[in-house]
């Protein structure tokens, strides 16, 4: 309450900046929505529960996209929820398409925009062959960067384009809302000739951007670190580096380290409990005890029924990737 920052800002702005207003507004909104139900068990109880769930990060489940992306905390919570719910899919070792990942996202957020998923997939696939299959961890980390730093990446894209076009970076005015028009990628030939932009210049511009940027952005030191390792780099190269960067993931704090991505003992325990409850499977569960005792790190291969299916799809996806691409551009 008495933090020094608090005194530096007017109260209202302070609350807005800390997104307290967002949550308060949402709380009232939720209250309004379910006023009959809530009035039965008490408004105080509701507020307690609400802010508890915000702290736990469970408040974003099945909420509309506009709310989910409203605050960094919400974004991180969503990332964590996504990881938690679909870790098992990754654990099973499945490679999925962008659309399928999108479907999974929509299970948690019905109006999740396809555009964001597409952008995340571009990071994984280096802006190429959009119908390829991706591993869960690749997608998740790319998605994390794309989703959490969405606005920052927009600005970075604009800067990158300007640099590519040879404009003086000092005159770059960071576009915020109108950044959409800069999204067009350069023609492939040009990009391959130049192979991106010079890292140091880019780094300088980004530092500038981080200072001014009002949205959340990755720690500038880490960005610098990423850029310091190379001479030149492309936009997607940069994003891939960001998404794979250990420190940025830690700083973001939503997901575990890559090594521990499949590790969630509490949930695994819960899952075993659920498996035992499957109706009609009680016998087999007891008769086949080693299935339940499988070490959680090794993906369970119960019959592995979709292996052949999966391979078939991969071939198919490779053979007619071009048609799918045009299809995708339509949407």
């Amino acid at each position, binding site marked *: 309450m008495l933090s020094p920052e608090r005194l530096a800002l007017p109260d209202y702005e302070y609350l807005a900046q800390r997104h307290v207003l967002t949550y308060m507004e949402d709380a009232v909104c939720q209250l309004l929505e379910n006023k009959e139900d809530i009035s039965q068990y008490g408004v105080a109880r*509701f507020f307690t*529960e609400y802010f*508890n769930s915000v702290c736990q990060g469970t408040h974003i489940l099945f909420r*509309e996209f506009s709310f989910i992306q409203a605050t960094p905390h919400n974004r991180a919570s969503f990332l964590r929820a996504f990881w938690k719910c679909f870790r*098992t899919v990754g654990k099973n070792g499945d490679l999925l398409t962008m659309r399928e990942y999108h479907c999974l996202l929509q299970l948690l957020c*019905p109006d999740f925009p396809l555009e964001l998923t597409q952008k995340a997939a571009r990071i994984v696939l280096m802006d190429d062959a959009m119908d390829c299959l991706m591993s869960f961890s690749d997608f998740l980390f790319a998605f994390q960067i794309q989703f959490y730093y969405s606005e920052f990446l927009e600005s970075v894209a604009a800067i990158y384009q300007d640099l590519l076009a040879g404009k003086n970076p000092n005159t770059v005015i960071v576009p915020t809302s109108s950044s959409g028009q800069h999204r067009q990628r350069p023609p492939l030939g040009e990009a391959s000739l130049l192979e991106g932009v010079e890292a140091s210049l880019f780094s300088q511009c980004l530092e500038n951007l981080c200072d001014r940027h009002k949205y959340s952005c990755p720690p500038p030191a880490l960005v610098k670190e990423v850029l310091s390792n190379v001479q030149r780099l492309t936009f997607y190269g940069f994003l891939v580096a960001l998404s794979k960067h250990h420190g940025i993931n830690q700083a973001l704090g939503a997901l575990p380290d890559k090594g521990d991505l499949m590790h969630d003992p509490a949930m695994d325990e819960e899952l075993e409990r659920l498996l035992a409850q*499957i109706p009609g499977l009680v016998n*087999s569960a007891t008769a086949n005890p080693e299935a339940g005792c499988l070490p959680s790190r090794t993906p369970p291969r119960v019959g592995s029924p979709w292996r052949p299916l999966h391979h078939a799809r991969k071939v198919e996806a490779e053979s007619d990737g071009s048609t799918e691409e045009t299809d995708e551009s339509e949407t």
Partner: protein
Amino acid sequence: MIPGKYRSVSGRAANNVNCGLHLVIQTSSLPEKSKVEFKLNKETPSFSGRLLQHDLERNYSSRQGDGRVISPSPRNKSSCISSTTNVTELCGLEMKTTMSSLSAFGDSSIQTPSKSRIRQGCHSAGPNVSGDHIHLASSSMPSFPILQRSSEEKILYSDRLTLERQKLTVCPIIDGEEHLRLLNFQHNFITRIQNISNLQRLIFLDLYDNQIEEISGLSTLRSLRVLLLGKNRIKRISNLENLKSLDVLDLHGNQITKIENVSHLCDLRVLNLARNLLSHVDNLNGLDSLTELNLRHNQITFVRDVDNLPCLQRLFLSFNNISTFESVCCLADSSSLSDITFDGNPIAQESWYKHTILQNMMQLRQLDMKRVTEEERRIASVVAKKEEEKKRESHKQSLLKEKKRLTINNVARKWDLQQNRIPNIAPNQDRKVSDSPQDPSQLHGSTVSAFPEETGSLDSGLSNTLQGLSVTDTHLVEVDGDTLSLYGSGALESLDRNWSVQTAGMVTTVSFTFIEFDEIVQVLPKLKIKFPNSLHLKFKETNLVMLQQFNALAQLRRVDQLTIDPQGNPVVNFTLWKYYVLFRLSHFSMQKINGTEVTQNDMIMAERLFGILAHVASSELPQYRLISILGDVRKKQFRYLLETKGKKPGLVNEENSDSKRLVGENTNRATLNYTTRDFYNERLEEIKEKKKFCKMYMEDLVKEATEINMKNEALQKLWPQMFIELVRDAVIEIRNKNSYMKLCLQQITDQK
């Protein structure tokens, strides 16, 4: 019948009955007598041989001879050649009649002054057959013999002359016999009809079994009524123009290839064309009196014009080449026909032959010389009726099938347009359609023209009716056994219909095609009530794109099988969709998905993949959210219930308990539900509104709070100084004790 008797007579060569002829010809052209009577009576044994000869068909075992010319029937006409039941041999003038037949004519005075003579004349063998009465002498002309009879003969048989088996090669010149009525040249070698043009009173001319190649020399014989030219070499029917009174024309056993030049023979009663080379029958116009037409032993493949013969009663078509009823269908239009034969034709071998003929020719009394019984007729009509019904049924079936096909095409087309797929039709049509995509008839038009080769295969009448029928069809509902198929979104309205309990109970499979899944979702509660036994759901071209959408199916009562056709349902391309379905709809214990048996491994895998999702959704969701999400489901159901409440109040309770059960069964995944796009967007709008309000409210609230806070802070800042000031004031006040005491006392007294 006649020929049969005839044959039996000839075959036995012995018939003891006296036979006679009673030929009555009555013509108005005969001034002196209105009635001429030929009375011939013969003893049969002697002429049996000739009868056989005369019957060219004696080698055929058929019961009906082609030699037959006249058959019995009562005569009403004033002029006729008549014979009754047993009359046979008109040709040879040796006509035999039984006494009864004669008496049928009411004329018993046919006794036989010349009986023996005739017999003699006709049957004595040898060249001098007619020696007693006839003298053939060489005439002045070198080639033609001249015939003269004795005056006695002339008197006795003034009106007849028989020159049978005289080995004549030419017609003799017959002098002084102008009054001859009957002339017989049977069994000679005559090649040309000559020298008889002066016999203008001739009524009966028999040239049977000669070598005549062309009909000629008859133009003056205007009175001729019976012309017998059987067994000759005639190739064409011709030169009969003046024989307007012809009553009987026998041309059997010639080489005639077509029927012609007979249309003026309006008095002709009997026409015998058996054993010719006819390939078909037509040109029968004008033969208004024809009652018997013999066409046996030709090569006839089709028959026409028979319906233009008003008096035709007997038609003999045996031993021809008729193979279908259609080729003789004109017979069905003849009202007078009572006796017909088809034996020896391909058609007679067909299984349908008899009843088809009988059904189409109700007027028939005899078929193939057998009397048509009532029983046969009845059977024929029953069979025909059945066949007709079958035909109609199959026609109806094909009509329905075609209609269904067109409708489905139409629906598919609409669907494609709706999905913005590029339809592969001609550009101009495309433009038309896109100009008015809402116009169903327009759409239909293009559908029809898009499949011209298919519609072309139907007969035009059928496709016409179809076009008329399906103009308005933009959807199709079909119940086929246990399957209810719905095509097009309009078909969903059919769920509002009152389905019979039986139908509704029978339907276990519901198939959706060309319908947006979101639209289906809206009718699922109805489906649940109307078709409680539906266990198998099929989706094809329904735009299933998200796993989420399967959540909607959870509200059904029971689903055993699910079939999602990959066509138009991209979700099937996902590797996870099956497991998600199993997971989300686990309370149904589904048996088959897309035709594949669900195994326990599948169930375990589904749970492994999505179990945590359900767990998170149920246990980590804050209470208020849980209530609001489950509340939505309940609200939705409630909304539907309100709609149906008025109609079926009994269902409400059931529904309530049902939904309770449903919620109880899988609370941990009930939170995973699906709201259709429209509904969801609607909700988002609602939320936006609320948010706006909340934002304003919060703004005010926060502003107020910060203001208070600011005042509070200002107060906090001022307070220490104020306190000091206050203390100081107080200290100053009480510094002088006495004066302060005084002041206080003063105040107390003042109060009093």
